[in-house]
């Protein structure tokens, strides 16, 4: 035992240095935990303060009333109907366009300058500030194409905005499918499109859907580009119903109707000086957060499920 004690003694400066470094290392771990804790607390504080402020206004009447100059009478009927219609239009354009572009870039694109150009543009568009899409919509859809301040303009704008998200996630989803499956399909005589449509797309469906949902949750909270095209904030009527009682039964008039959406309604209330309207803003915020968190939670669940279910 004596030699061991001796060496421990002579090693003690080095030993001290080691334990000091270990101490620094573990205190960093505590710092890291603290930072994450703060971030989570912020999320919690945000949601709690909104719920506490908005609670008195969150009742059935709030969802079924139009905006009004009396804060107690004002509601979000026009806003949530508008949000739903704009989201439908966005989906209609963004999903086919984004998925098709993703398939092209991942499965078809040859290695030439044209494909590289498309690729650079997708990356670049993902970094363009959202308000610039609003300027594009104002200049192109609203003025040049004369679509005005309509649901269609808003849907097109948001579709362009989330297109990069849908393309990138589609590509990732397709890339995750092993080449084995492609070769097997070819070996059975499938053409390239048959291989994609019958085999690759069904397998990557879950991941593509996740990307689409993330894109939708981004679009539903987007305010700036819609303010730019001049979305009205005071709308005390609903767009015409898509299903009509008389002959053609289906009407697309709602596409050209003026609209407002949830985030714009909330912005409108936040920027009013009266305290009572802040309560409305908080209540609208709660509804908005529930919408986005539900979409995101669903996306996370899907991702988890599909990752777990599929083993190549």
């Amino acid at each position, binding site marked *: 035992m004596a030699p061991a004690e001796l060496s421990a003694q002579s090693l003690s400066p080095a030993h001290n240095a*080691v334990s000091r*470094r*270990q101490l*620094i290392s573990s205190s*960093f*771990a505590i*710092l*890291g*935990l603290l*930072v994450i804790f*703060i*971030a*989570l607390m912020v*999320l919690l504080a*945000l949601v709690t*303060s*909104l719920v506490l402020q908005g609670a008195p206004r969150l009742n059935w009447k709030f969802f079924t009333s139009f905006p009004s100059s009396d804060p107690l009478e004002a509601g979000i009927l026009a806003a949530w109907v508008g949000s739903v219609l704009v989201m439908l239009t966005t989906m209609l354009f963004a999903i086919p*366009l*984004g998925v*098709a*572009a993703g398939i*092209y870039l991942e499965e*078809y694109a040859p290695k030439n300058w044209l494909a590289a*150009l*498309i690729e650079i*543009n997708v990356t*670049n568009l993902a*970094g*363009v*500030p*959202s*308000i*610039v899409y*609003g*300027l*594009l919509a*104002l*200049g*192109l859809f609203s*003025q040049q194409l004369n679509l005005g301040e309509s649901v269609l303009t808003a849907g097109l704008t948001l579709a362009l905005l989330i297109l990069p998200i849908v*393309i990138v996630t589609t590509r990732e989803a397709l890339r995750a499918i092993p080449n084995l499956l492609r070769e097997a399909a070819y070996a059975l005589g499938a053409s390239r*499109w048959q291989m994609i449509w019958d085999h690759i797309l069904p397998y990557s469906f879950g991941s593509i859907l996740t990307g689409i949902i*993330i894109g939708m*949750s981004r679009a539903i*909270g987007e*305010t*700036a580009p819609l*303010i*730019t095209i001049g979305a009205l904030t005071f709308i005390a009527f609903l767009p015409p119903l898509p299903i009509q009682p008389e002959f053609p039964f289906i009407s697309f008039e709602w596409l050209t109707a003026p609209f407002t959406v949830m*985030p714009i309604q*909330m*912005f409108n209330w*936040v*920027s009013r000086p009266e305290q009572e309207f802040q309560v409305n803003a*908080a209540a609208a*915020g709660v509804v908005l*957060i529930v919408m*986005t*968190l539900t979409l995101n939670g669903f996306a*996370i669940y899907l991702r988890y499920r599909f990752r777990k279910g599929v083993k190549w």
Partner: protein
Amino acid sequence: MSNSSPALPKSNRFTKHKGAREWQERVIEFVLFLAGFSCVLTTFAIMEILVVESWHFFQTVSIVEFVTSKDWSPLFEPPGYGILPLISGTLTTTAVALSVAIPMGLIAAVYLSEFASGKLRETVKPILELLAAIPTVVYGYFALLLVIPILQWLYSFVGPTLSNIFPAIFPVEMSGFNMLGAGVVMGLMITPMISSISEDAMRAVPNMLREGSYATGATKLQTALQVVFPAAISGIFAAVILGISRAVGETMIVAIAAGLQPNFTFNPLDSAATMTAYIVQVSLGDLPHGTIQYQSIFAVGLTLVLITLVFNILGYFLSKRFREIY
């Protein structure tokens, strides 16, 4: 094969549709190509709209005035068209946001990638991503009605003393709209983005390097900071640059909480308008198409795009310069 092929009938049921199928494949490929090309068209459309409307704007306003004057007041008489106040507002809020988001984001990323157990990481990461998914207008509400009042209360302890010593920098009372509050909230918003991308970059560093470092007796922190961090630096740069472009282009938080008065200042305690906030302010009014004020938002938009472009190019070269391949 060549001598056996005449034996096959010229067109059997397997080859009959080959031509049609080939043709169908071509059409499908072309349609998919068009979808991909729509991205290129979008970029061109954005540039076309911004450049054309700005061109009209610069017919009236000289470019020299635009980039050098410190007076931005297009909605008043006489109008001033110097974009510097809007740029100073944008840069100040961005700087505040980054001084919150870079330390927090990177510490969280190092912790999650190198220290945390797999289970903790898998739990925390999606929750942090939720933080990034909250609509920015809600963050604006948060900045105006929660963070700025807290900052005002904190400032009330030091404000009077500081304003005695440096009256030029510190006001006696903090304004209800200021760039500090907006910037801090913006920083909290982009923290998850920076942490998530840098964490992915650090996790992509091969374990070999970590084991080598541990073998020489390094602690976890030394390994993380001196081995993994430098190895992942290109991805970390990319994350920070993305954060910068996000902060420069962020609109609703600053429009709600930073004030809408253009103000040439780099003091975060002041209220000032950013480029994005100006665009929102003009859009809220009802400006007729073709007026100089209408055109001015496109000139501001063009400046915004050019600034984000500069950062993106910078980021591209930085991450290329420091990329390490294993």
